[in-house]
């Protein structure tokens, strides 16, 4: 019977699809699951958190600004440790063949969504064996959140252990998506708890319809969506891992929009009259991190000299094929508090040579680590390292290029006493400068398990970050981060390489797509011309 029902609804759907507006997105990876909390991949969030769910706060489309989501408004206590959220009323949960909601979204759902991640004794903490909540942990939520209380059905109070300025941005991230407690209870009663991850129910613009592993995900417009209704009726993800094949599909009209084109294809896409290309500065940075605890790289003058010996523009031209902006700061120019007054170190091999001599460095030989994988912030680390090797040889520094398998690279590059400078990068999670500076450059992260691969610990710099983190006033925070960037530039723990440009090719028929600085792909505003 069930099989028949599925079949009947499938038939009805495919009949309707002929007339309905169907938008096809050639996504690059299979989702790990549809519950956003236990996963970390952007491709998973594009398939789960963004179409299906909402959060208390949301990023305003196309920006990293925080705006009201399922919370209509909020108050923050004087000392910055208490957040009282007033929840939106009349928000409907979606339904599926197994579940029809009897109530609207309320405070119970919020508490459930957070406590299942934060409390090890919550019955849903391990609803699938071996599940972990890596983003919740990574954003330091276990140490940050003291309690979450329900004041009434539409008011929730979060109490923090200490003030945290990026808190509102943190809870706009996919891991903080709000799931239905009523649905969870129904699944519990039916003994099919893992369906929370397989057959998601949310409050978002699209309803989940079906997933064929590694092939297709189907969604339908949510007719009861509380926000602006989507313009398309059906959303389909055609999972296509290879970038060249994605482009062929786009050209053949098998999909309307694709992520991550190969840099080499950009010019051809621009030339194609049936396609258009959106572009935007990426919220990322690629860098070369010296080991600042090892001589002679513990001397800022030496690091500065090496930075001046490398031709940054040549790397941007050759490796990024011009599709990037040379980086002078550790945060990208699209991020608030970016200090544009800072001058980049000039490319000047002669001066560099002299500075090295003055620092008493002769016949220096060093290693440069080139990562084995392509990332959005670094299309070809090996080539980058080769260009650096060539430049540095001109000032008498001999470079040996080394590489390891990716997992090993990540691990070994954080081992104390590491020999050599490491090419790596970062893509922002929530648009807050703290998410770059503290994660990548603070004293706290300069140890095994952190991500400060320069092992650079500057007390003044870290103090500025700590102050900024507990300050609520944006202007004061901006000043603190600007000052921090000045120290960074003087001390030169990295050679900052580039902020790569992100491209989204799409069919000419597509309108209304808004690129996200966070790299999310969302479709509630897109439309297709007939």
């Amino acid at each position, binding site marked *: 019977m069930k*099989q028949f029902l*599925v*079949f009947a609804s*499938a*038939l009805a*759907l*495919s009949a309707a*699809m002929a007339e309905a507006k*169907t938008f*096809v997105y050639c996504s690059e990876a*299979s989702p*790990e*699951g549809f519950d956003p909390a236990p996963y*970390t991949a952007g491709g998973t969030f594009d398939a789960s958190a963004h179409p299906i769910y909402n959060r208390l706060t949301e990023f305003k489309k196309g920006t990293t600004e925080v705006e009201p989501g399922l919370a209509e408004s909020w108050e923050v206590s004087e000392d910055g440790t208490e957040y009282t959220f007033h929840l939106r009323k009349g928000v409907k949960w979606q339904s599926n063949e197994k579940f029809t909601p009897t109530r609207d979204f309320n405070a119970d759902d919020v508490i459930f969504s957070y406590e299942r991640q934060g409390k090890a004794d919550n019955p849903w903490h391990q609803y*699938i*064996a*071996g*599940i*972990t909540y*890596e983003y919740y*942990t*990574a954003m330091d939520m276990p140490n940050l959140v003291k309690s979450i209380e329900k004041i009434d059905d539409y008011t929730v109070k979060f109490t923090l252990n200490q003030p945290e300025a990026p808190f509102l941005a943190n809870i706009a991230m996919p891991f903080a998506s709000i799931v239905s407690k009523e649905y969870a209870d129904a699944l519990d009663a039916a003994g099919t708890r*893992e369906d929370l*991850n397989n057959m998601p129910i949310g409050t978002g613009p699209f309803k989940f319809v079906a997933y*064929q*592993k*590694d*092939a*297709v995900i*189907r969604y339908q417009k949510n007719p009861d969506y509380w926000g602006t209704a989507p313009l398309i009726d059906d959303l*389909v993800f*055609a*999972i*296509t*891992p*290879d970038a*060249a*094949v994605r482009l*062929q*599909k786009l*050209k*053949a009209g*098998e999909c309307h929009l694709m992520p991550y084109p190969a840099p080499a294809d950009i010019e051809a896409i621009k030339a194609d009259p049936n396609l258009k290309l959106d572009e935007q500065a990426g919220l990322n940075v690629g860098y070369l991190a010296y080991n600042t605890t090892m001589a002679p790289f513990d001397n800022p003058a030496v690091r500065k000299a090496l930075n001046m010996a490398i031709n940054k523009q040549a790397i941007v031209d050759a490796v990024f094929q011009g599709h990037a902006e040379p980086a002078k700061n550790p945060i990208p120019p699209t991020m608030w508090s970016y200090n544009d007054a800072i001058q980049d170190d000039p490319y000047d091999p002669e001066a560099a040579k002299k500075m090295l001599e003055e620092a008493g460095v002769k016949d220096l030989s060093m290693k440069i680590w080139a990562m084995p994988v392509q990332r959005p912030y670094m299309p070809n680390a090996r080539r980058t390292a080769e260009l650096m090797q060539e430049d540095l040889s001109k000032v008498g520094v001999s470079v040996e290029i080394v590489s*390891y*398998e*990716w*997992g*090993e690279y*990540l*691990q070994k590059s*954080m081992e104390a006493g590491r020999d050599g400078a490491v090419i*790596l*990068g*970062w893509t922002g999670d929530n648009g807050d400068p703290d998410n770059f500076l503290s*994660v990548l450059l603070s004293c706290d*992260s300069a140890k*095994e*398990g*952190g*991500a400060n691969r320069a092992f650079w610990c500057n007390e003044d710099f870290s103090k500025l970050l700590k102050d900024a983190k507990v300050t609520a006033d944006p202007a004061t925070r901006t000043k603190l981060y600007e000052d921090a960037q000045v120290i960074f530039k003087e001390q030169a723990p990295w050679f900052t390489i580039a902020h790569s440009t992100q491209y989204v090719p799409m069919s000419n028929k597509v309108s209304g797509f808004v690129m996200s600085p966070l790299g999310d792909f969302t479709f509630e505003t897109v439309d297709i011309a007939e």
Partner: protein
Amino acid sequence: MVRFILSKLLYLVPTFLGITIIAFSFVRILPGDPVLLMAGERGVTPERHAELSAQLGYDKPVVMQYFDFLGRLMQGDFGNSLVTKKPVLAEFLTLFPATVELGFCAIVIATLIGVPVGVLAAIRRGSWFDQISMTAALVGFSMPIFWWGLLLIILFSGILGWTPVSGRISLLYFFPNVTGFMLIDSLLSGQEGAFASALSHLVLPSIVLATIPLAVIARQTRSAMLEVMGEDYVRTARAKGMPPFRVIGIHALRNAMIPVVTTIGLQIGVLMAGAILTETIFSWPGIGKWMIDSISRRDYPVVQSGLLLIAALVMVVNLIVDLTYGLINPRIRVK
């Protein structure tokens, strides 16, 4: 015959155990571990790393882990994926029909073209047909699959627009998964045009996957035919004035088929290897692509159990080939 089958089956036991060891060690020999890869650029503290490893059971000595793995296998438990958290067997069964469908079409194409070409090349030894077909076979055998697939896509889907670029069926069709074989399910769905769509999606990937086996089969058929045609009984048949068609069809081909059938059987393993690249390029949701993803994420349970399941299947297919061999050539089963 029963004794023959039993003896063959008995050989499978040590082979299977050997495969469990290889499958288990293979992914662990690779540097890097799943916890590190999950953490990415952010890194993971040693404490959290230990905690997660313990949760996954990777803090125990490797030998213990192996016996745990073997113990669970005995109970039919293939473990759960670290990434999707779903049972490996369930994922395998979901994806396997797609690979079988593709592999089946590929082997059919390879056999239907490879055997006649080989026979013809052998009969017309030294002719232009022989030279061209055998050169083409050599080229096909050394074809880099990824490049070849992309080339065909650009030509047939991009420029000519004859075939779809990738996937198993047009996204306009949506029907329940009954058998997992798209050709069958599309017929069962009763939706107009669904079967044709599924078939057209199979054309390019099958050709790409068939390329290497086709080359091998054609060359093997040719050399087997040449050898058989030099035999006394063929010469005798000819001398008796038997029509050439009968000589080749009955006397030569049947005997030449013995090594060819073995070759076709061995191509099943080659197909699995080819499927990895073919499935990736054509976004074909099969086990080849699944294996590659899992290896790059160090999804230990998927890689070890997946390899085991694939190996077991290849073993079964080879067993069937051995038995067929026995059917074609009675002398073998007597021995």
